[in-house]
């Protein structure tokens, strides 16, 4: 299962020299890595989205302390990812205050699990998502909200029936951007969730492992190619969503 430059694979390549860098369909092991990466990214975005929506809504309004909250949300963007991972480990590791509580109450462990990898990804892409959602919400015409108010809609009603549908393209950008960025998260994931094949080893981590092995260049190249394809697909989706936002 472990994706390293396995002797078996190397042997297969050696039998057919010159074909190592040829584009072929992913092997079962590689498919598993890709699938795991997609699962981690999906879980990360799925969990981050509701919180990002709430914070995007809050940050679109004017209130004292907005600057501070905004800075806090953007912190993972500015910190070295390894520091974010270490902070997560300190807080949500088995010994950490949140991690210990989770274990005691729900027997749930985050560190060194797929869920932990998703948490690390979610935290890392959170600023990007909040920003896209905030811009989407800020682009909604305040006059329409005033009109909804005179028609009897309260604050939450207005958010759900006017703001959110009209900020839809911004939310779409947030989702595609968050998902794409999650696919490539490395530092925070490896620090908090470690590099466990089949559990936390996402594409970038598998590439890193392949490069650690003296004969893993071909493997790394293939995995990198998949990364490029996934990233391009994600960015194209985000671009399409962004185009709808500007319209």
């Amino acid at each position, binding site marked *: 299962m472990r994706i390293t430059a396995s002797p078996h694979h190397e042997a297969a390549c050696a039998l057919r020299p010159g074909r190592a860098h040829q584009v072929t369909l992913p092997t079962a092991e590689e498919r598993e890595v890709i699938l795991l990466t997609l699962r981690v990214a999906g879980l990360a975005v799925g969990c981050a989205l509701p919180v990002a929506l709430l914070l995007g809504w809050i940050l679109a309004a004017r209130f004292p302390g907005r600057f501070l909250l905004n800075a806090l949300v953007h912190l993972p963007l500015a910190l070295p990812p390894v520091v974010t991972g270490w902070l997560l480990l300190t807080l949500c590791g088995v010994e950490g205050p949140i991690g210990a509580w989770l274990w005691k109450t729900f027997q749930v462990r985050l560190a060194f699990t797929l869920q932990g990898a998703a948490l690390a990804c979610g935290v890392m892409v959170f600023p990007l998502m909040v920003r896209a959602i905030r811009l989407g919400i800020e682009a909604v015409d305040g006059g*329409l909200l005033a009109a*909804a*108010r*005179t028609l*009897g809609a309260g604050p939450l009603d207005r958010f759900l029936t006017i703001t959110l549908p009209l900020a839809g393209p911004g939310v779409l950008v947030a989702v595609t951007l968050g998902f794409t960025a999650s696919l490539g998260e490395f530092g925070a994931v490896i620090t908090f969730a470690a590099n466990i094949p089949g559990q936390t080893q996402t594409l970038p981590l598998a590439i890193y492992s392949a490069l650690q092995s003296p004969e893993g260049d071909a493997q790394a190249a293939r995995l990198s190619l998949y990364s490029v394809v996934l990233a391009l697909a994600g960015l194209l989706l985000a671009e399409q969503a962004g185009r709808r936002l500007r319209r």
Partner: protein
Amino acid sequence: MALEIAVEHRRRDFVVTAQFSAPAPGITVLFGPSGAGKSTVLAAVAGLLRADHARVALNGERLDRLPPHRRRIGMVFQDGRLFPHLNVERNLVYGLRRSPGGQVLPGDMADLLDLRKLMRRRISSLSGGERQRVAIGRALLSQPRLLLMDEPLASLDGPRRLEIMPYLQRLRDTLRMPVLYVTHATDEVYRLADQVVLMEAGQVIAAGPLPELAARVDLALAARDDAAGVLLGYVHRHEPERGLTSVACGGEVYLVPLCDIPTGDSVRLRIPAREVILALDAPRNISVNNIIPAVVSAIRFDEKTHAALVEIDVGGGQLLSRITTDAAERLHLRPGVRVLGMIKSMSVELL
């Protein structure tokens, strides 16, 4: 039954102080140049603007103490503000769904505003006039206790405005709710207003029934080129053989070109000041159909244009006559002088 409004708002060096009462039901037009503070008053009444002080009492109930979305004050904005992600029908019922129900029925509204064919349409496919009709319907269907209209026709061009006006007049006659209507267009004032509040530089200059304020020579309406007197009356008799209709206004009967308004219906006559001729003695063999005895109640001379604006009391109300200063001096016109007001049937506008 009345609506009491008091608004005070200071923003930098612009101060709005407005206090007036309005009939309920009835249309009260806030009239004045742009920047007079009319829209500020409306926004404060709706609660969309947090004014320094705003008191809104409808038949004694304080609406300003409620949060804006619970006041049940409907509003029609200049730019329509229809929700672009909902079709016409869903725009129309947005407020209705959030209302406790009431007398304004969707079917009636669709007929009155001619909306049946638009129901499934997207907002972006509507013309300006159609948009405003939907906006008016949407506001009315939210079952408001008070309707605010902030220059609802200002974003429309000439023909489109004329297209909407009959709908508004129909609403004036069928709605049983108070309406505050902001505009700086005089034709809307003459057609729609029961009551007028004149505003300038954040202050209320005068407030009162339209016929009274229209004829006041010291106020803004009379100072305009299109100044006119307004008389309220009812259709008295049709005379098809003469091609005339007689309208009764306070004891006098005015002959106007034959119209198809049913006998007994109330109408308003608008008689432009420049069309009213004044005489001291009754002329003979003259084409003018209406020769009305009157008393001069006020005169204002304008040195620059050599014009005299004369307010005359015709019994059932006041009319204006704009004549030359020379004519006013030849006839020795001053308050209290008895005159005859002569008005061609063709000069009378039936609104």
